[in-house]
């Protein structure tokens, strides 16, 4: 890659934020130099895809919670990009129990101290854990 081939696609997070990625590229004399990049459309697209995938899953779960098919715990787990295994480890609760707690009828009977460990693991309050946002959160 030559210096002038380093992608400079003005991705907003790079130009407005202060993200910066360095690339090594060859200058006119064939020597490697460090060239900061302003983002690359390929990068940007892949990132957007992955992020959208999370968002879609999150939104589906939110609707399922409102429809009474899943417990709010499922929504917050998706929001934090966790799986029952990761959440279980973070909260100190066995993964099979976490999976049970994703069912609304079982979640409703949970004791406060269990809810507290989940709330702490998910970085929200116990009150927030009981419900999900009524509207889609676009960010």
């Amino acid at each position, binding site marked *: 890659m030559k210096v002038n081939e380093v992608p400079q696609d003005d991705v907003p997070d790079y130009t407005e934020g202060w993200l*910066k990625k360095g690339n090594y590229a060859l200058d006119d004399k064939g020597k490697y130099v460090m060239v900061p990049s302003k983002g690359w459309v390929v990068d940007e697209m892949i990132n957007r*895809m992955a*992020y959208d995938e999370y968002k879609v899953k999150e939104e589906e779960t939110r609707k399922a919670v409102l429809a009474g098919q899943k417990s709010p715990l499922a929504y917050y787990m998706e929001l934090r*990009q966790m799986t029952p295994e990761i959440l279980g480890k973070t909260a100190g609760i066995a993964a099979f129990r976490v999976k049970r707690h994703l069912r609304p009828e079982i979640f409703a009977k949970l004791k406060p101290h269990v809810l507290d460990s989940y709330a702490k693991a998910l*970085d929200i309050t116990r009150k927030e854990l009981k419900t999900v946002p009524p509207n889609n959160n676009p960010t």
Partner: protein
Amino acid sequence: MTTETLANGKTYIHRTSAHCETGVTSALFRDKGLDISEPMVFGIGSGIFFGHLPFIKQTGLPISTFRSIPGLVFKKAAKRLGVTVFRKRFRSPQKGMDELRRVIRTGQIAAVTTNVYWLSFFPRRYRFNFSGHNFIVLYENENGFRISDPALLEYTTDCSTHDMERARFARGPMEPRGLMYYPISVNPNPDIRKACITGMTDSCNQMLKIPIPLFGVKGMRYVAQKVIKWPEKLGYVEACRQLAHILRLQEEMGTGGAGFRYIFAAFLQEAGELFGSTELNDLSNEMTAIGDIWREFAVVSSRIIKHRKTKSEETFEKAGGLMLICAGREEELFKNLRDVVGKLKS
């Protein structure tokens, strides 16, 4: 480029780097007075690698990595340059945070490994549950900690205590467990030539000699063949999703595919000057060419993914084929490198 004054009055210079771990390592060594470039650290620490890890899943998909395990480059580079290091993981978050505070109060900068999801100073879209990002903690301030992230940020920034604790002690695949590291003392005149030779030999072995078909050049071939078969096996849309995942690991998550090939090429160039060897320089040019093919692979794959609904003119055969070309040329390159290294004198 920004500068910061540390707790003991020393000046720290923030420089952009191409990769988090090598950038951090180079900055840590420079802080101790050993001026060594990022590509040098990458080469000496044998950062170049390929591995397909079907047993570690991320969002339910296997990881293909283009570099060695996070933390290993620092460890290897330090050992080969005669640097004594402090490197510790913690069971208790409290102890881990206390130790970090104690160290930076003395003016010693320390690197930490973190989970990107919990770092709120990044734009929201870049925060994924990935444990393996490294940055340097400079000093404590009213907002928490002042940090320098050479790989992703242009300036130094603040990170709250809460973020820091969550990010360092996140659970899940590849848990950082509060990993914290810094050099205690460096050898001011290390035998760089010897370190380079060790690093290059080790890189060759990593790429050619691991007798498991998931690693090195063999791993590349394995993944390439899988890519070619995906559309039949998984259906077109799912195949695109999997390809996007590889691409994401290649280009975005600091596991760099093409980018790493360029860093390695930069290393070979620098080593070529050091040894006065034109052969190393030729290999550097070859590595650059391979990096360009990896980039082409990324572009072709991105076209496939972009037109996944209409089916584009680019095919999975072409993407997989490019990967096979990379595998073939890298195999050739590392074999040649092995021969060249054998002739070098430290």
